[in-house]
């Protein structure tokens, strides 16, 4: 982030409104749903993108919220949505939406918190808290699909194994160029050898790419999570320019 940065390349696609039809809903975690949307006009998106979902009531009342996109291909959008207790939109999306329902989306949005294949050969460290893994999963999937050679590592702080988003997909992506470290904050799998508890500066040292390897770092989680992790990364010697943060829980 520099004061007079050269203009970055424009996102491939200008944001626009699209009508989406729900193809499938799936329980992602005990508190979250995976929505698979059929959006014939969706142009595709880069990994890390978000979009706005707008719901309209019969009397015209509208509510709009932002969500990260887990997918990247044209014509189809996958969202992983955590229920915000006392929220207005997420409880409806998690509990009430079913296949065939229509909603409006605006996007793709954001051209900063993005990972593009071939952009750099530096290693990439992804650090997720809870549902903050959604845009980072999109990056890992894009990295694998592009056979990009840069090493990827995901450090994923999550309450319990059943709260992991995209668990099977992440397991399938793991390999020589993509490693995953789970931090279980409440309960670990039965055969888990590590400790259970919140992510700390010390556990971050053991599970992330070292500063001398100059990783580009994407952090996504709650505000408290992003603040703590970014501060620890600076203390460990990473450059502030290499740390990109995204937070959920704006609403």
């Amino acid at each position, binding site marked *: 982030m520099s004061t007079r940065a050269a203009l970055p390349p424009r996102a491939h696609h200008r944001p626009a409104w699209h009508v989406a039809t729900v193809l499938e809903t799936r329980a992602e975690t005990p508190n979250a749903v995976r929505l698979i949307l059929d959006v014939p006009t969706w142009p595709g998106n880069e990994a890390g993108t978000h979009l706005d979902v707008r719901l309209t009531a019969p009397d015209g009342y509208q*509510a709009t919220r932002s969500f990260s996109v887990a997918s990247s291909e044209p014509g189809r959008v996958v969202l992983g949505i955590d229920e915000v207790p006392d929220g207005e939109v997420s409880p409806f999306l998690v509990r009430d939406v079913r296949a065939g329902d229509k909603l409006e989306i605006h996007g793709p949005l954001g051209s900063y918190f993005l990972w593009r294949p071939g952009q750099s050969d530096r290693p990439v460290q992804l650090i997720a808290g809870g549902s903050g893994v959604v845009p980072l999963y999109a990056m890992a999937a894009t990295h694998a699909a592009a056979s990009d050679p840069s090493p990827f590592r995901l450090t994923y702080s999550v309450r319990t194994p059943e709260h992991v988003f995209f668990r099977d997909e992440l397991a399938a992506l793991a390999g020589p160029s993509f490693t995953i470290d789970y931090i279980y904050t409440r309960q670990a799998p039965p055969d888990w050898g590590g400790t259970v508890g919140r992510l700390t500066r010390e556990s971050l040292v053991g599970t992330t790419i070292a500063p001398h390897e100059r990783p580009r770092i994407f952090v996504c989680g709650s505000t408290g999570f992003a603040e703590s992790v970014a501060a620890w990364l600076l203390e460990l010697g990473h450059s502030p320019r290499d740390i990109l943060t995204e937070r959920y829980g704006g609403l």
Partner: protein
Amino acid sequence: MSIATRGFRGRRREPGDRLPPGQTKVSRWPVLSAGPTPDVDTDTFDFVIRDENDTEHHWNWEQLLAVGVEDITVDIHCVTHWSKLDMPWRGVSLDKLFENVDTKYDYVMAESYGGYTANIPLKDLRDGQAWIAIEAEGAPLTPEHGGPARLLVPHLYFWKSAKWIRGLTMMPTNEPGFWEQYGYNLHGDPWKEQRYW
């Protein structure tokens, strides 16, 4: 274009809520920023306005406060669809800070500790519309909310209210700042829903 979503009712606005289109009222104060929170010390704090004559007007922390801190109550609107109403702030009016600045340029680049920038027309910063804020909700601004000092331009989307403010540089043209380079609107009027471009 607007289609109804089956079963959605949502919450109704309370009478008297002054909300721009697409916004929802919050009581909490969410945090958004693109990178780590910089550590800005009031002991070394230096705020500067640079004009086209290469004149620099500097204020250290004590000098800034000595200009005069006023109470402000305003609504703020974030591009991520939340608004916070009747929020009490304290800060120094930019009208006072611009009093001795001689400029013919119409645009300003706000610059922050940490490298963040935001472009704003000068006319949006004058006439009681903008402040260097140092307190919110009765307490000094916390670092994650831009402390010790942030720009406060409440009639524009809140990314224009640059956190960790360190200076304003006059510009002849409306060059895009940080988020503006990434597709956010050059002006950002919430009542016109100027979110993206």
